[in-house]
C-alpha cells in the first residue's frame, strides 16, 4: 500500500546523507557492494561502497557481474549473500556452561549482539524473506533469542526492483518487484532524466530519518516514473512458477518419477540452501576447552542435502539424492505452508543462479506439474 504522504525526491548524493543519518542513530549499515566479482551484502562504511554501475547477468548455474553505462546502485539481483547472514548468523553460540569444582554447573545464554543493523538497498523479495524468518524463528512458541536479538530494531531501506535478473520470479510468489510492507523507507531508483530516488516512509522511524535527508517533494512525473519503472520490471520477469497451488502440487508429487531425473543432475552440494534467504536449518555441536570444564553449545547452518541431516541411530532416513532434493523443494513450496502458513520460497532466484548443476526450481516445478497431468487418467 502506497503511503498517503507525498513521496520525497532525493538526489544521487542523498545516499551519503542516508548513511550518515543511520550511523548517527547507532545503526551498522548493511548494503550491497561488489566483492570478488559478485554483489554481496556486507557492512558498509559509506555510500561510496555501494555497487554503483554494476548489475549481474544470471542464468541457471551462472552469475556474472556486469558493468553498466549508467550509475545505477540498486540494479543488483541474486547475489550470494542475503540478509539471513546477519540476523541468523552462520555460526552462533546458544549457551555456554562451566562445571564448577563442586560438580555444579553455571550456564549462560547466547551472546548479545553488539550491533543494530540497518539494511540499505535490499530488494522486496529479501524483505519478504525476512518476514518468513520472522515467522519461522520468532513467531512460534519458542522465539529464537539469537535471531530476535539481531532482528528486533533493524531498520530497513528497501530498494524497489527496477532491474530484475533472468533468474527472478518474485511476481509468481507475490513478493515483488514493488515494496508493499516490512520497510522503514522504500526507495525507487530513477535513471531516465537524471539519477535520483523517490523515497517514502513506511514507519514513524522511517519518516523521521527521511525528514533528516536533503530532499524535495516528488513531482507527479517522478511518482509516475517510479511506478512505470516498477511496472516495467514486473513485465520483464520471464521466469514463472506453474499457475496452480504449489502445496497441492508438491503433495501430489511425492512419488513423481521427476525426482530420479533431478537426482541424476543434483550434486547434493547444498549451495541452494546456503544462498537461499529463507533456508533456516541448523545443526548444533558442543565444543569444550582443553580442561573439559567449559562447554560452548554452538549452532551452525546445516543443509537438508547432507546425508547426516536425517541421521537416526542405524543410519540416515534420506539416503538417496532424490529424497533429499524432494525434501528441499517440497519444503520450500509445499510443507512450509502447513508448518508456518506461508511459502518458504520468495522467488529471489538465488538457488537457480548458484546451483553448479544449473538446476532451476521453476523448471522442476513445471516438470512436476506436467508429470502430474500425464499421470491423470
Amino acid at each position, binding site marked *: 500500500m502506497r503511503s498517503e504522504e507525498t513521496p520525497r525526491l532525493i538526489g544521487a548524493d542523498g545516499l551519503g546523507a542516508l548513511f550518515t543519518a543511520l550511523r548517527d542513530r547507532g545503526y551498522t549499515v548493511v548494503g550491497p557492494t561488489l566483492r570478488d566479482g559478485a554483489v554481496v551484502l556486507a557492512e558498509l562504511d559509506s555510500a561510496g561502497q555501494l555497487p554503483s554501475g554494476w548489475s549481474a547477468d544470471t542464468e541457471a548455474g551462472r552469475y556474472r557481474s556486469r558493468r553498466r553505462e549508467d550509475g545505477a546502485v540498486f540494479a543488483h539481483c541474486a547475489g550470494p549473500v542475503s540478509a539471513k547472514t546477519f540476523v541468523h548468523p552462520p555460526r552462533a553460540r546458544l549457551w555456554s*556452561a562451566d*562445571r564448577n569444582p563442586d560438580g555444579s554447573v553455571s550456564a549462560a545464554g547466547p551472546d548479545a549482539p553488539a550491533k543494530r543493523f540497518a539494511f540499505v538497498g535490499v530488494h522486496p523479495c529479501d524483505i519478504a524473506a525476512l518476514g518468513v524468518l520472522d515467522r519461522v*524463528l520468532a513467531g512460534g512458541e519458542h522465539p529464537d533469542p539469537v535471531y530476535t536479538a539481531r532482528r528486533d530494531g533493524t531498520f530497513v531501506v528497501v530498494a524497489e526492483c527496477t532491474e530484475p535478473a533472468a533468474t527472478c520470479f518474485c511476481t509468481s510468489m507475490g513478493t515483488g518487484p514493488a515494496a508493499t510492507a516490512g520497510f522503514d523507507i522504500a526507495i525507487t531508483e530513477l535513471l531516465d532524466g537524471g539519477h535520483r530516488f523517490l523515497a517514502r516512509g513506511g514507519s514513524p522511524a522511517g519518516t523521521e530519518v527521511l525528514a533528516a535527508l536533503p530532499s524535495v517533494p516528488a513531482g507527479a512525473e517522478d511518482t509516475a516514473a517510479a511506478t512505470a519503472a516498477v511496472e516495467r520490471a514486473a513485465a520483464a520477469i520471464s521466469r514463472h512458477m506453474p499457475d496452480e497451488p504449489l502445496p497441492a502440487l508438491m503433495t501430489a508429487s511425492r512419488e513423481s518419477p521427476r525426482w530420479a531425473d533431478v537426482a541424476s543432475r543434483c550434486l547434493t552440494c547444498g549451495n541452494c540452501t546456503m544462498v537461499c534467504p529463507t533456508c533456516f536449518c541448523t545443526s*548444533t555441536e558442543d565444543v569444550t576447552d582443553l580442561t573439559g570444564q567449559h562447554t560452548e553449545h554452538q549452532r551452525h547452518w*546445516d543443509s537438508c542435502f547432507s546425508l547426516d541431516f*536425517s541421521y537416526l541411530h542405524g543410519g540416515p532416513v534420506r539416503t538417496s539424492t532424490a529424497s533429499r532434493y524432494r525434501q528441499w523443494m*517440497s*519444503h520450500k513450496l509445499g510443507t512450509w505452508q502447513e508448518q508456518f502458513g506461508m511459502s518458504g520460497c520468495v522467488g529471489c532466484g538465488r538457488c537457480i543462479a548458484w546451483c553448479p548443476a544449473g538446476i532451476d526450481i521453476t523448471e522442476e516445478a513445471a516438470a512436476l506439474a506436467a508429470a502430474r497431468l500425464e499421470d491423470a487418467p
Partner: protein
Amino acid sequence: MNAVVPVPHRIVDRRVDTADTVTVELAPVGEALPAFRPGQFAMLTAYGIGDVPISVSGRHGARPLHTIRAVGAVTRALHDAAPGDVIGVRGPFGTAWDVASAAGHDVIVVAGGIGLAPLRPVVERVLADRSAFGRVAILAGAREPAELLYADARRQWATQAQVRTTVDRAADGWKGPVGLVTALIPGMDVDHAAAAAFVCGPEAMMWFTVQALLERGVPAARIQVSLERNMRCGLGWCGHCQLGPLLLCRDGPVVGYPVAEPLMRVREL
C-alpha cells in the same frame, strides 16, 4: 530462557535396566522445569558431548525418570553418568499421548524395544485409574529376553492387565513366544473394534503393528503412534525433525495414525 539453556539436574537414582539401558531419576539443582506429560520428551545434555531427545519414562513424586539406551556418543555419556553427576535438561517438548480419549475403551499398548519407555507413563496412568478403562493389554517385544525393559513393573502390571512379551531370538531358557510383537495382537482378550491403541517402536514395527490392529478392527482414529526423527533443538528451529508437513518436536512425536499414515507410506520422506 529455559527452553534454550539446559537446566542443571542431578542424577539422584540410576537403575540398570539391561546391558545397555538405564533409567535415571533427575532432581533439579536449582529451578525445576514444568511437569512432563506422558509422550513428551526432554533434550538431555551431557555437557561437552551434546544433547539428544529422550522421552519421559515415568516419575517418582515430582521427579522425572528417563530411560536411556546407549547407542552413540551422547547416549553413552548419559548412560554412564553416575548418581550425583549433573546433566542438563530442556523441555518439556512435543505432544503428549491422549490417554483421556481412551477412557471407557479397552486399551492396547504395543511397544518395540526402547519404545516401552515413552509408553510406561501411559500404562501407569491407565492402571492408576483402572476402573475408567476397559480391558487392558500390554504387548512388548525385544530382540532378546535380556533386552526386555522393566521386569518389576511388568510383574505389577500383570495383576491388573494382560501383559505379553515376545523376543526375536530366544535365549536364557526363554519359554515365551518368539517372533514379532504383531503376532500377539490376535490373542489378546479385548474388544478390538472398541479399543484404543498406543504404539511406539522402530518405524517398521509400528507400521506392521498398526496394520495388524486395523485388521482386527481397531479404528484408525483411535490409534496413536510416536514418531522419531533427528532432533537438534526441540524448539522448532533446526528443521531436522521434519516428516512431511510435521515438525515432530512441535507437532509430534505423538500423532494420530490418520495423520501419520500417508507420511509413513512414503519411503525416505
